[in-house]
Structure formats: structure tokens, C-alpha cells
């Protein structure tokens, strides 16, 4: 009995299914009090490749950052297999946008990928041989083994993206969030990423991917979330990815929602 109470308490009383890899309940996110995501409710299915699609400014990156606790929630909650992020860091991997870092940092590809193992190591303990080997294996998986000692600024954009993917792989997570991994990469990297995503799916991993190219959604993903400040539709691609839903997602901004958000931002400034 006490277990039930404990789990109710941990879930904050919300309805989060412990079998669901990512469940989002009533999430609202704001930048400087201006809401950018409204009332998001979502339950990601286990072991699928899920595309998050929507126009610029729809809040796609914001959604995954908020899920990972990188942005504060104005309201709502997110659970990973029923537990909050703080308890599940080990099983959640993150591939940020390539432009989010300065690639002139003094590090080799191997150094960066090894950072994927840092979460497993306690304070002050440097990475060991085991971690280096895991990092090398991850580089191998993305076809970058021969570049492991190359300075990261001397890699092409596609190779840098693969290094970021390898860093997340080295973490060996169950759930992955990827922020536009296909943005600005060459054809061979695009193919390598697709192969990698299928391999992750075959191993039962759940992958949520912010994606900007609606042409390739049907080809790459099992599930899709259409997002424009709120969820327009989410589910299997063949059911959800319809002309009508796309029209709703991309057909102009939601003027009233936008105006309300701006009004709230103005209040915040006073």
C-alpha cells in the first residue's frame, strides 16, 4: 500500500504511465513570461522514431529543452518511465543543435564523444579506459572512427553532427532527444543518421527528433507530432500526417494565441 502512495506522491498526483518513455502532462513554457508552448499533453509510444514538426517559432526546440529540464516549466510535468528527469538522467540522451556550441573549442572528436560518459562518473573522477572504449565504439557506429583524433573545428558540418550523435550514443540511453540532426548535413551524413536511427529503433530505443523537412517525414518516422505553440495532432504518421493537419500547423500563426502571449509578455515587463 505504501508503495502506491509513494508513487502517487512522486508523480505529483498526475496521471503518468510508468510504461511510457516520455509523458508530458499539461505543460506550459514561457520565455520572460511570454508563453511559447501551451498546455502540451503527450505520451510517446515505446520504441518508435517520432518526428516533431512545425513552423519556425513553433516551440519545437523549446519543447525538448523543457522536457530535459533545461528550461523551467510555467506549469505541468514531464515523466520518463513514470519518474521525473532528475531521477532518469542516465537513460535520457540529448543531441543539441550543432550551432549551439563553439566548434573552435580545443578538443578532438574523441574528447567530445567521451563527454557522453561524464554523467556516469562521479565528481573529480576522470574518464577511464572503459569510457574511452565506449566513446570509440560510438564513433565507429557513426562512421567517424578514423577522425577520432581530429580537432573538431577541422570537421565538416556533417561530421560535427555525427560527433554529437556519437556523444549521445556513448551515453547508451533508452530515450533520445535530437534537435534538428538533419539540418545542413551532406547526403552521406543524412543516410548515416537514418541508418543509426533505425538501429536505435531495432534496439528498442525511443527517439524524438525535431525535424524541419516535411518532405521526408513519411520516410523517416513512425510517429509524428505536429506542433505550433500547442500540439495540433500527434500519432502514427499515416493517420496524423494529413494535408488538413499540415494546413492547421503551417497555415498562418494562431493570431489570438500569439496576441495573448504578447500581452502576457507586456505585463511581465512592468
Amino acid at each position, binding site marked *: 500500500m505504501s508503495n502506491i502512495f509513494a508513487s502517487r506522491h512522486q508523480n505529483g498526483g498526475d496521471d503518468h504511465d510508468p510504461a511510457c518513455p516520455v509523458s508530458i502532462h499539461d505543460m506550459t513554457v514561457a520565455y*520572460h513570461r511570454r508563453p511559447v508552448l501551451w498546455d502540451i499533453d503527450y505520451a510517446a509510444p515505446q520504441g518508435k522514431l517520432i518526428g516533431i514538426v512545425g513552423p519556425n517559432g513553433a516551440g519545437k526546440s523549446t519543447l525538448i*529543452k523543457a522536457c*530535459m*529540464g*533545461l528550461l523551467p516549466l510555467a506549469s505541468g510535468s514531464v515523466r520518463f518511465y513514470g519518474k521525473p528527469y532528475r531521477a532518469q*538522467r*542516465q537513460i*535520457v540522451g*540529448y543531441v*543539441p543543435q550543432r550551432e*549551439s*556550441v*563553439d566548434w573552435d*573549442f*580545443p*578538443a*578532438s572528436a574523441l*574528447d*567530445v564523444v567521451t*563527454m*557522453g560518459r*561524464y*554523467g556516469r*562518473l562521479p*565528481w*573529480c*573522477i*576522470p*574518464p577511464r579506459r572503459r569510457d574511452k572504449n565506449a566513446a570509440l565504439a560510438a564513433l565507429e557506429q557513426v562512421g567517424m572512427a578514423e577522425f577520432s583524433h581530429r*580537432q573538431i573545428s577541422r570537421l565538416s558540418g556533417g561530421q560535427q553532427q555525427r560527433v554529437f550523435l556519437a*556523444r549521445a550514443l556513448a*551515453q547508451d540511453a533508452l530515450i533520445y532527444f535530437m534537435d534538428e540532426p538533419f539540418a545542413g548535413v551532406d547526403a552521406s551524413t543524412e543516410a548515416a543518421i537514418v541508418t543509426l536511427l533505425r538501429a536505435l529503433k531495432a534496439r528498442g530505443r525511443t527517439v524524438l527528433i525535431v525535424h524541419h523537412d516535411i518532405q521526408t517525414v513519411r520516410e523517416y518516422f513512425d510517429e509524428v507530432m505536429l506542433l505550433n505553440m500547442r500540439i495540433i495532432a500527434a500519432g502514427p504518421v499515416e493517420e496524423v500526417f494529413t494535408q488538413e493537419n499540415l494546413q492547421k500547423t503551417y497555415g498562418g500563426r494562431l493570431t489570438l494565441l500569439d496576441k495573448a502571449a504578447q500581452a502576457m509578455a507586456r505585463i511581465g*515587463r512592468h
Partner: protein
Amino acid sequence: MYSLRTARSLLALAVMLLVSVPAASPAWASGEPSRSRSITDTSLQWPSGETLARVLLFRDYNTRVVVIGTTLLGAAAGVIGTFAYLRKRALMGDALSHATLPGIAIAFILLGAKSLPLLLVGATITGVLGVFAVIGLRTIPRIREDAAIGIVLSVFFGVGMVLLGVIQQMRTGQEAGLSGFIYGKAAAMLAADAWLIGVAAIVVVAGCGLLFKEFRAVCFDPQFASSIGVRVHLVDFIMMALVVLTTVVGLQAVGLILIVALLIIPAAAARFWTDDLRMMTILSAVFGALSGYFGSTFSALLPRLPTGAVIVLCAGGVFGMSMLLAPKRGLLAASYRHWALRRNTAYQHLLRALAELEEQFGEGAEIPSARLAGARRWSPLHMRSCLAAARRRGAIERREQDVITLTPSGRAQARRMLRNHRLWELYLIRHADIAPSHVDRDADDVEHVLSEGIVRELEDELTDITGVPPSPHGSRSAS
């Protein structure tokens, strides 16, 4: 759980404060009277042979203290500066150092006496306040980091200057040597002060060594670091605490205006030499230490020069040499690479022009150099140097003054160049829909960078081409 975290963060602060307490040094402000100088007095007082020997052989106790102190300070600043620089927080150090001045003045007013440790505690308190003020201002929309730093730096420094003025009036014209903190007064350093710097240097080096992994993760990608559970705020706090520690113990030697230079310059210089963070940290420490050592030695030899400024100029010298001489990223290496590329391009153009002329005159023909000069708009001087280079590389022979022949190896190279050039032209015409009249110039640039792999791909695209195809746009060297 929460209290443990708080305890950890307090520990960093406690270490910092403890370190600044044990040093007792009453006479820090008693520089010799001979050092007082006016701006109009410009003679440097060149050192006598005896002074030279005394300083360089470390015979003089005071000099020894100052040199050791500034060397250790330079090393510590080099180490923590590496991370501040990579975290793009180096200018925060400037806001911090300027914000120490009001703390020094307030501590002096409250105590009514000169006690270095307590003045440094005051400096630490307002310095940290300054850092928090920058962080706080930054969260306000429309105030960017540079503006926040500028505001905090100038306002805190202004408050400090006003307080110094107040002290001057209180003490009938004596500001008690507090201005030594502004410009630095290394000669006033005592053994206890050098010890203080030594302990601080150990704390800084040990801290950076232990937290190397955390510092690296936070400097490179704080968002990712946070996502895997690195406590980014705490790591940033410790990093900033070590910057505060280094700044505060270095105030007396270098002065609050110039101390930021020791945080930035050695790190920026080290970046030129290496792509490895560990090596960069070590080099930065070495550069900082060298700057401290040479700077204080020079200023011991020339006591009229302010030590802080000389130390910073030495660091600037190290930076300048790194910028010029570093093997991969240095300016000289870069301009050599550029020059070598241009020379190679000219060489390949020459060979290709010869191959085109051989198509007209027949293989092995003696080509008049006048025709070669007509193929490209080469100046006679440029062509002479190109021809000389080609002959040195064994690609051409020159039997008579104005007749040139390709050697067999030169011919092979020349025909390969010509083939690459024409393959690229054909590729542009067929696959990129570029007009034949335009492709020559495009191919001119590209032919030098075509690797074997790209050539093979070109061959796959243009399967009907074997050997050297004829020019798709008519020969340029034909009259």
C-alpha cells in the same frame, strides 16, 4: 540531500576565505620613498652591474619574494584563466577586479588601519557582489552581457574612487597607499604575501585539476552538461570562486586595472599552440609564470617601471610571439601556407598551358616561350620565376633561351592537370548547366583541389571520356 549540496557550495567559499586570513603583513604599503615618482620624471635609472647580478642571481631577499610571488600568481592566473577564457567569462574577471575597490576602501574605513588580509576580505566581498550584479543585470531583458559588465565595472570602480577621496579627506591628505591596489605595487610584497599567493596557486591548480572533467564539459557545452547531470551552476560558481581568489591575491602585485590581462592573455596565447585542453592549460600556466617572472625581474632592474604593467607587457610579448610563430594557427604559418598554395597553383597552371601547347605543336615539341607567355597574362618576371621553379622540379627543360620542352615526368603531370581541368569543365557543362564560355575560369580554381577521390567520381559521372578529352570551348592558346 539539499543540505549536502549547500555544504559543498559553502565549502568552496570557505576555502577561499580561509586562504586569505592567515597572511599577516602590516608593512605592505611601505614602498621605499625613492620609488615615488612624477610623470615628468622620465629617466629610467638603468641598473648598475652590481644590481644586475644581485637581481639575476636571486641574491636579494626582497627581489626573491617578489619574483616568486608574481611567478606563482602568473601560473595560477594562467590555469584558471584558460577555463574563464573558454567559458567566455574572461571579461567577468574585469568587472570583478574593478568591483574590489569599494571593498578595500570600506574595509579600511571600518578598520581605520592597514591590515592586508582584512582589506582583501573586503575586496572579495564587493568583488563577488560585482559578479552577482553582472549575473543579475544579464537576466533583465535587453541588457546584454557586455553592457552588464560595463555598467558594473564602472559603477563599482566609481564608488571605490569616491570612497578613496573620502578617506583622503578623513586622513588629512593620506589615502594610506590604497591606490597601490589600483596600479599594483609588487615591490611592497612581503614573504607572507608571497605565501598567500602560493597557497592560492595551489588551491587554483588543485581545483582545476580535480574538476578538469567538469570544467571541460561546462566550457564546451553547458546545456549538454546539464542534461547529463553536471551541476552547471555549481561548477560555474567554483570556477568563478577560483577567479575571485586569483584576482584578489594578485591585486597588490598587478593592480586591479591590469589583473584581468593575466587571466586572458596567457590562455589566448596558449590557444595558438595546441588543440588539446590539457596541454593548453599547462602552456597557459607556463606563459603566465614566465610573464610574472620576467616582468618582476625587469621591474626590479628598472625600479621606476610599475611592476604590474611590465608583467602585462611581458604577457603581451608572449602573446605576440605565439600569434606570429605558432606552427599551425600562427600568422607566419598561415601566410606560408597561402604562399605555398599560390606557388603550387602557378606551377600547375604553367604545366597545363604547356600541355595545351603540346596539343598544337605535337608531343615533345620545342615550345617558344613567347607562345607560353601568350597563354596566360603572365608578367615576364612571374613567368621567369615559374619556369625556374618548374625546372628545379624537373618538369621542363630549357635547351635554348626562349625554347621550352616538357620532360617525360613533367608531361605526365601536365596531362593529368589538363585532364582534371577538362573533366571538371565537362562536368559543369553537362551536370551544372553552366555555359561553355564560363567553365574555364571555374575549372581554373577547382583543378588544384581535386583529390583522387573526386577525380574518380568525375570519371564515374563522365563514363564516355577516356584519356584527355578535347577542350569543350576551343583552345584558349590558339591565336
